[in-house]
């Protein structure tokens, strides 16, 4: 999302697809969890193609609105047709790999961070390669990208699919951890949170995404005392970060340390 300069407000849709598909397949059809998770990723990838082909012709706000509607559609589908409707369903099997069940918090911690490490490594490799450079180029100048022979539309679709697959994996990990899911976890609010993580951490830096997610995840714990007013604080945090470090925390820190090193 950040590197290619495209804003998606539909990540909750893919997150929801990941959670529901893998939960339903493993709980109701008895598929091994690994298989269910992979199937969910494939479904998310197809959904991403279906969404990308018409909407990636749009730019900026229009793209954001199109993806936003997609997220809402998925949420409505989950409410109407998902098992348990709006109240969701439980008894989702724990994550297991070849018989080893990740049923304790500690083992799940390692599983999730293992996934994070893999995805970070994958993304780092990608960014510093032909395809990743092309994505960054696209962000810099679409005109010049085309003149350099970059297949702009195909690149946009691919990066969109990739982000959908990541979100789907996140959804699956969530579902097999809490073992109970309902549509209320997969709303626009979640998409906005994801976007906030990226913006606050730094939209053009992978560590930014990590730092951003950690901050935004810890924030609600700190905001317990504000109760339902926490949304106001979210808004305030986002506004302040856009006012004082528009590029995000991590790029800001890099800039500062570079200045210190070379005065």
């Amino acid at each position, binding site marked *: 999302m950040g590197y290619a300069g495209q804003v998606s407000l539909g990540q909750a849709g893919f997150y929801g697809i990941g959670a529901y598909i893998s939960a339903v397949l493993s709980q109701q059809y008895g598929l091994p969890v690994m298989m269910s998770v992979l199937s969910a990723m494939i479904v998310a990838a197809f959904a991403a193609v279906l969404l990308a082909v018409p909407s990636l012709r749009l730019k900026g706000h229009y793209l954001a609105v199109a993806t936003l509607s997609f997220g809402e559609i998925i949420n409505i589908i989950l409410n109407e047709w998902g098992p348990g409707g709006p109240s969701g369903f439980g008894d989702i099997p724990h994550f297991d790999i070849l018989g080893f069940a990740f049923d304790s918090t500690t083992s799940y911690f390692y599983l999730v961070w293992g996934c994070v490490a893999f995805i970070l490594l*994958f*993304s780092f*490799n*990608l960014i510093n*390669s*032909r*395809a*990743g*450079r*092309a994505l*960054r*180029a696209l*962000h*810099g*100048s679409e*005109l*010049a*990208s*085309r*003149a*350099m*022979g*970059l*297949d*702009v539309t195909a690149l946009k679709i*691919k*990066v969109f699919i*990739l982000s959908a697959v990541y979100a789907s994996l996140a959804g699956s990990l969530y579902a097999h951890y809490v073992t109970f899911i309902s549509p209320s976890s997969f709303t626009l609010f979640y998409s906005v949170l994801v976007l906030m993580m990226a913006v606050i951490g730094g939209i*053009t830096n992978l560590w930014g995404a990590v730092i951003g997610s950690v901050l935004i995840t810890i924030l609600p714990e700190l905001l317990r005392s504000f109760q339902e007013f926490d949304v106001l604080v979210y808004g305030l945090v986002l506004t302040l970060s856009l006012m004082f470090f528009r590029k995000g925390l991590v790029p800001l820190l890099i800039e500062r340390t570079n200045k210190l090193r070379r005065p």
Partner: protein
Amino acid sequence: MLNIKAIGKSFGGLVALNDVSFSIEERTISALIGPNGAGKTTLLNIISGIFPPDTGDISFSGISISKLPSTKIARAGISRTFQQVELFGDMTVLENIMVGRYPKTRAGFISSGLRLPSVIREERSIRNISLEILDSIGLSHRKHELSSSLPLGEQRILEIGRALATEPKLLLLDEPAAGLNIKETRSLGEMIRRIRDEKKITILLVEHDMDLVMRISNRITVLNFGEVIAKGSPSEIQKNHAVIAAYLGTEED
């Protein structure tokens, strides 16, 4: 190698190009000159596929390209630079050149993410070729700097380097000397010649610096108000009355 036949283009009611025809021979430097607003950049944009012509046709090595999008035209072997520099500003000088290798390389998303051995090998070759290009355009010492931090003259040179990385057969340069001082312009002229002689690349140049144009061009086409008013060698163009009138104005004006 490039045949431009009766190209016409208008924007709204404004006729930008009208019945423009000329052709470019392989391994030559051709210049396209004319007063401001004559339609030179419009023609470059049509050749490079940024927008299609209303009428007429362009063929490149015998294939019609006038309806192709710019990505395909770039892949067919036409690369370009821009009048308003269009570098990838958040990327380093070296990375800008490396992007230019895109059409000549293959690695996809998944193989890149997993950093397969084939990807590592391809990356190494992209890097080496890009470093060679940087060396040949004299920007090696800047390779790790952000392209946006370079002075304009070097940015224009970098754009040429990035275009060269795609291994074009035809290189379109849109006012490469704009904003350059006399010394920089002179070395630019040398570089353009070298590109023709050493890399065997054909060049079409839009330029206002007459000194540069007259010094390096084999053929010159002059546009005025969207029409071709003269074609010929530099010495023919310098003597051409229609050209002198277009640049200096005539008494009827």
